[in-house]
């Protein structure tokens, strides 16, 4: 059977009946075939929502998933079924070194291809695969690298993330007694590109990170410090969403946060913050007065602030959060409003894209 002998419409129909993982394998057969796939699937590939590398360091395995926007969307928790897997990359101790080449195999149940590689080829293998994705599927798709050791502390070591073009990084790490040297962590953040999401479970005392660290530029940061009183991660944050769960948090730091936002001195990119304080949190009862919050008449209905954040990752990819509060503060520099609420030992702060005048027009 010679595929090239078929008319283009037939070739197109055949390719439209193939799964992404099979198309991926097919694209390695020849350059001409690769071009044929791209031209036949121009429209289909536009519907790809994201390609995600989900790295499991404990197993030395990285599963790559492809999420198609035509499938029913489950933004709460992507299914991550084998069916969505386009390839699995597995580091092999005993793979023969020498000139690097892809060593494709298929999974036992024929669901997805597997690439085996030697540790020394890791960077090269990931870059080749990733560049192949960029060529095949285009660079307008969201590519994400997810590395999560959130729930299973198996000894700390900073992740080694290959340097891949156009990839958003999401990491979750436990910082416990096994962390020897925090400079390693600083080096990790400074050597990587800007993170989309960072989640840290801080289980030991640590010093503040360098205020200029790329850590603070992450779009979204979630810190859990249930057992220790860690540094003030909020102060230097320059991203959009932050969630802090702290054993203790100084009142002065919280006031400082709101005041610096109000003055326009800091947090210009901030959209949403939640700061939960477990102990010594009585001051939260008076904090609204102290930050100079404005109050909306209790008989009137304030508008509801809505945000899509990923502070609940890895449990959920995206969470929609709604905040309806009678209290708000205003930023001096542009008159923008932030709704503020104190609930469950938590300060919640949602920044509107509205001036005070526009905001008050929405109050019913």
């Amino acid at each position, binding site marked *: *059977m010679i595929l*090239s*002998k078929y008319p283009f419409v037939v070739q197109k129909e055949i390719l439209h*009946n*193939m799964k992404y993982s099979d198309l991926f394998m097919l694209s390695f*057969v020849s350059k001409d075939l690769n071009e044929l796939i791209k031209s036949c699937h121009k429209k289909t590939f536009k519907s790809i929502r994201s390609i995600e590398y989900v790295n499991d360091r404990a197993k030395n395995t990285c599963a790559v998933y492809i999420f198609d926007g035509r499938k029913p969307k489950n933004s709460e928790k992507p299914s991550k079924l084998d069916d969505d897997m386009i390839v699995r990359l597995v580091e092999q101790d005993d793979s023969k070194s020498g000139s690097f080449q892809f060593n*494709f195999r298929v999974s036992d149940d024929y669901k997805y291809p597997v690439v085996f590689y030697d540790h020394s080829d890791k960077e090269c293998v990931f870059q080749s695969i990733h560049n192949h994705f960029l060529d095949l599927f285009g660079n307008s798709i969201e590519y994400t690298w997810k590395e999560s050791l959130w729930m299973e502390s198996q000894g700390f070591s900073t992740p080694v993330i290959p340097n891949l073009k156009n990839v958003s990084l999401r990491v979750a790490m436990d910082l416990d007694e096994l962390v020897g040297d925090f400079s390693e962590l600083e080096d990790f953040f400074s050597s990587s590109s800007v993170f989309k999401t960072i989640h840290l479970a801080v289980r030991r005392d640590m010093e503040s990170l360098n205020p200029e660290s790329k850590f603070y530029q992450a779009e979204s940061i979630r810190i859990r410090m249930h057992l220790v009183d860690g540094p003030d991660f909020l102060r230097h944050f320059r991203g959009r969403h932050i969630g802090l769960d702290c054993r203790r948090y100084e009142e002065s730091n919280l006031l400082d946060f709101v005041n610096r936002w109000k003055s326009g001195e800091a947090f210009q990119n901030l959209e949403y913050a939640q700061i939960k304080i477990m102990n010594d949190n009585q001051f939260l009862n008076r904090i609204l007065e102290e930050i100079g919050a404005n109050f909306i008449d209790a008989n009137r209905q304030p508008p509801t602030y809505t945000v899509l954040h990923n502070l609940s990752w890895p449990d959920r990819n995206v969470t929609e959060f709604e905040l309806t509060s009678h209290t708000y503060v205003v930023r001096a520099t542009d008159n923008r409003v932030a709704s503020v609420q104190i609930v469950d030992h938590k300060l919640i702060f949602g920044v509107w894209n509205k001036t005070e005048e526009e905001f008050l027009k929405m109050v019913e």
Partner: protein
Amino acid sequence: MSSTEQGTSSAAPAEPTTAPESAAAPEVPESFYYVHGKDKVVHKVSAGALQHSALIHGMISNLGYTEEQAKANPFPFENIDGDILQMVVDWCNQHKGKPTPPEDTNLPKQKEKLFDLVLAVNYLEIKELLTYCCKQVAMMVKGKSPEEIREIWMIPTDAEDEAAEKEAKKRAGKEAAGETAAAAGDAK
């Protein structure tokens, strides 16, 4: 399209023995056409079955053949092997007037037969059958490595593609040079 519209029939309508009591419309006799492939074996197929083929349907729509004319003028499909045409005819008969199922498991398993069937079905423009066939062709490489796919679908390597392209360019160059020389000769 009904046989009445085409004005064709396989046999004269039966004489009514008694006047029908009910108001039901009289059954329209089915019209038939004849097709043959490379092997010249003629197949009699109903117009209903042939509706699956957009090509043949278009050809017979306005013919207005009588049964005798249809018999005397079978449609020749010289580019289709006899056994392949038989498969197509069988499929059209089996699915006459029925909704097509989501998959068809009766397609040939042999690569070469399936390849010829795809070409025939594409030529005859039988959309549903083409979809089934293409699914089957796609299934042949499911879970295969690039090298296995190359073998199954006989895909040339990049080096072979490049060599073929070079050869084609060379041939085109020679032909162009030949034409120029011939034109120059004509001018003299």
